[in-house]
């Protein structure tokens, strides 16, 4: 009762939810490791060393061993993580923002919404990977086009969630009160309804983040993702196929890193869903 404002309350709720907390902390640890460690430790992920090819983990200062041309696997996993996280996060952010706009407006203006939703249906009819391959194929294999392809693929998902949350909010009397006061569409959408759908939006964006990382890995695996020689978990897994019987570490470390990251993000998202659930707050 005494808590004024919103800050302390959501923080309290966050602390009361172990899922969110553990997920969030682990995600932060992974991100920090991927972004800071190669930089702080002066790690080189590209230097080849023919004298230490396919070295086993632990040997000669290589924590995770080396690959077929003697590059340090630990550095490559971290750098690959940096690429995956960057691509996933950018795609989630772009898809999130565009999806929020599309979702809000398509709920508020039924005719526009009908059209936008049919476009979304069309987009969703393509498998995400297929769309990604075609897109990268036609616009060139760069990190930017991978991000763009993934963003487009995930816009409908975010838009749908935002739209249904907005529609539910529009049945609340406070929207009628605003119309009755003479408020315009933008004020109702952005200064009122948006505040109430933002929770569901954040949760959905988190899931898109995890999904985008997976799809990016799949695209890289078939060679339509992050261009070589830049490491990404997907193309590292692709490279490891040849040595799967002789050098297990080439498969296991990027694979575990990928699975762990996706798991942690999903965990974080699931926790947020509970923390941000407005029904629990009343």
């Amino acid at each position: 009762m005494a808590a004024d404002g919103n800050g302390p309350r959501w923080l309290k709720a966050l602390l009361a939810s172990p899922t969110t907390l553990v997920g969030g902390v682990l995600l932060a640890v992974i991100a920090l490791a991927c972004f800071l460690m190669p930089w702080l430790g002066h790690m080189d992920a590209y230097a080849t060393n023919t004298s230490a090819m396919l070295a086993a983990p632990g040997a000669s200062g290589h924590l995770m061993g080396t690959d077929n041309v003697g590059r340090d696997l630990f550095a490559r996993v971290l750098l690959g993580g940096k690429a995956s996280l960057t691509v996933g996060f950018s795609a989630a952010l772009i898809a999130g923002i565009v999806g929020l706009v599309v979702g809000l407006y398509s709920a508020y203006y039924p005719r526009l919404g009908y059209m936008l939703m049919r476009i979304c249906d069309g987009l969703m009819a393509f498998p995400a990977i297929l769309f990604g391959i075609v897109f990268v194929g036609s616009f060139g294999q760069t990190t930017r086009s991978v991000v763009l392809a993934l963003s487009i693929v995930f816009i409908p998902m975010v838009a749908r969630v935002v739209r249904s949350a907005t529609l539910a909010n529009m049945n609340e009397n406070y929207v009628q009160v605003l119309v009755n006061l003479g408020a315009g569409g933008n004020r109702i959408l952005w200064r009122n309804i948006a505040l109430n759908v933002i929770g569901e939006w954040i949760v959905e964006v988190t899931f898109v983040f995890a999904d985008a990382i997976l799809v990016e890995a799949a695209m890289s695996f078939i060679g339509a993702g992050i261009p070589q020689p830049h490491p990404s978990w997907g193309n590292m897994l692709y490279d490891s196929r040849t040595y799967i019987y002789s050098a297990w570490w080439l498969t296991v470390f990027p694979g575990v890193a990928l699975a762990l990251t996706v798991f942690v993000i999903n965990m974080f998202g699931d926790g947020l869903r509970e923390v941000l659930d407005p029904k629990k707050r009343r």
Partner: protein
Amino acid sequence: MATQHRPILQVNNLCKDYVTRGFSHNAANIFHALKNVSFEVDHRQTYALVGESGSGKSTTAKIISALEKPTSGTVVFDGDNYTDDSPRQLRRDIRGNIQMVFQDPFSSLNPRKSIAGALLEAMEIQNVGNTKRERLDAAESMLERVGLGSWALNRYPYQFSGGQLQRINIARALVVEPKLLILDESVSALDVSVQAQVLNLLQDLKEEFALSYLFITHDLSVVRFIADRVGVLRKGTLVEEGTVGEVFANPRTDYTRNLLDSIPLPDPSRHQLAG
């Protein structure tokens, strides 16, 4: 001040049809929610519109507050027919003058907005007050007027009880200085004791701000206390109209009589259930 004989609100031959369409032509289904409803609300009067569920009373409220358009008929505010006004005209001439308080006090407020935020927003939209300071002062004094205080300003809706929230909703409606307040079942969801407080408050505010009320309810016992005139709606038709004294003492239709007789009285010796 407008001339006294001109009513503040005229509702003329209001009809509203809802059409549900299917694929085939035959599937079109017309539901007549309102059939030729006419009545007038005088300055500083309380007009009660009574009816059971499905009688069309909420549809009437929505048309008067310009949230919906009638199929035919007109609504006139203080001599100004606003039935076919554009959103811009409505905002300029009508919205600020006709305010509405809904039944559910909780869903009428944005759960993520502080009370100050809600009241200031109302004033911003209607261009009441020049500076934020001025608006804040107005919000504060209105909250005090409805029995709360400045302590309420920075709180959020979930921190209040239903009765307090309904006071806040009334305050928000009144900060834009309307002339007509539509109360759509506004006290129906409240406990008896809280309901009595809000009814008393409404009586006081009416005097103080020279308001007219359109009081929409299913509860006839409240009508007798608060209203001057009463209209009885049944399945979209206004079956009876008159002063509260007339209608309660001598209802002209069996329907109204039945409605009146169906209110359980807190007096066991009346034996209303017998027979």
